Every structure is written in C-alpha cells, then in structure tokens.
C-alpha cells in the first residue's frame, strides 16, 4: 500500500473531520451504532463504519488508497479516552 502522510495540520484536519461527521454521518447512525468507529476521508467525505477501528480505516483505504482519514466514534465527543474520564452526560451502563 502506498505510504500516506497527513496533508493538513492537526487543527484543520480535526475541523474538517468533525464537520463531515456532522454533515454526512450523524443522521445515518442509530443507537445500535454507539461505540462504533467512523473513518472519514476529509477530502471526499467517503466513510466506513465498523466496531473495529483498524477494520474501518483499512476498508476505506481499500476504496481510496490516499484517503486523509479522520477517525470518529459514534456517541462520543472523542475517538478515545485515556485515563478514564467518561463525560458527565454519558450514562454509566
């Protein structure tokens, strides 16, 4: 696979990714998708949804080998949490 490098700075990358998630993905996910990963190409808006983060990104790269991928997670503000700090608004179950 061709080596892909980030072509945008971190702030623009995140902003494009979050905007595309809101525009193209949020309206199509349900409660059953909660916790799944969304890999979005910030240049084309193409995306893949999977419960496995690696699978989501690899499937999108198979379709678009030079994709600039932003990784989001359904139902959470961030892709990951490091250090155990679920948001106050999230239920504990």
């Amino acid at each position: 696979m061709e080596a892909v490098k980030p072509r945008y700075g971190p702030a623009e990358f995140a902003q494009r990714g979050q905007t595309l998630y809101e525009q193209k993905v949020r309206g199509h996910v349900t409660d059953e998708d909660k916790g799944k990963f969304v890999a979005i190409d910030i240049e084309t808006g193409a995306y893949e949804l999977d419960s496995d983060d690696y699978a989501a990104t690899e499937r999108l790269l198979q379709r678009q080998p030079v994709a600039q991928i932003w990784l989001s997670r359904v139902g959470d503000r961030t892709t990951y949490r490091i250090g155990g700090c679920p948001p106050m608004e999230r239920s504990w179950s």
Partner: protein
Amino acid sequence: MVIGRINAFYEAVIPIRLQDVKGIVHEFTAVVDTGFNGTLTLPSKTIALLGLPWRTRGSAALADGSEGTFDIYAATILWDGLPRPILVEAVEMMPLVGMRLLADHDLQMRVQPGGAVKIVAVRKHGESRTR
C-alpha cells in the same frame, strides 16, 4: 496468556511484542490502563523505530478533561501468540495497553508490588480445552 507484574508504583506492567516493517519482533514494556478505551499507545520515537505507517488522525480526551488530536499508525502486535493488526495512538508517555486489546480476555491482578498480572484469552464456545 500474558504474564506481567505490579510494579512499585502500583502499575500493572506487561511485556508486549510488536513487529517492525521488516517483520522483526521487538519487545517493550507497557502499562495496562483500564481507563484507556483504545488498543495501544506508543511514543513517537518507538513508532519511528518500528517504521510504522501513518493511517489516520483522531482525538482523545485525557484524564484532566482536556482533548487533543493524535496521529494514529498501523501496527502488528503478537497477541495470544498470533500476529494481530491494530491501530496505535502516538502519545508521549510509557506505552499503554487499553481495553480494546483486552477484549475477550480475562484480566487477573494481585495488586501488591510484585504481584502477578495474568491476561488470558476467553475460550470461544466449542473451542478445544487443550489449546
């Protein structure tokens, strides 16, 4: 099965084995962090040493409530004796093993300095007991 120890700082420390781009296996030490809901973090110098390919960017919330953007790389970890492709977040601290790597495993710890940490794959229904 993975065997580790509780260290003097009450951290659950385990060995992890990762392949570099040439397939050569390197062993590192990682801390099990049940508050991390990803798979693995590595510092960028370790990612460079292994020659891991960049894959994506994502965000993470840290323990103080702040949020940051991180580069994410593809890696192959030897887990349960088998190579397993994973995504690794570049974070400048000691490697952390998160809950996604521990999925479908039992985690047992004797929480005292020197105490054993055991990570054992959960047998799937119908799987041989002699494995």
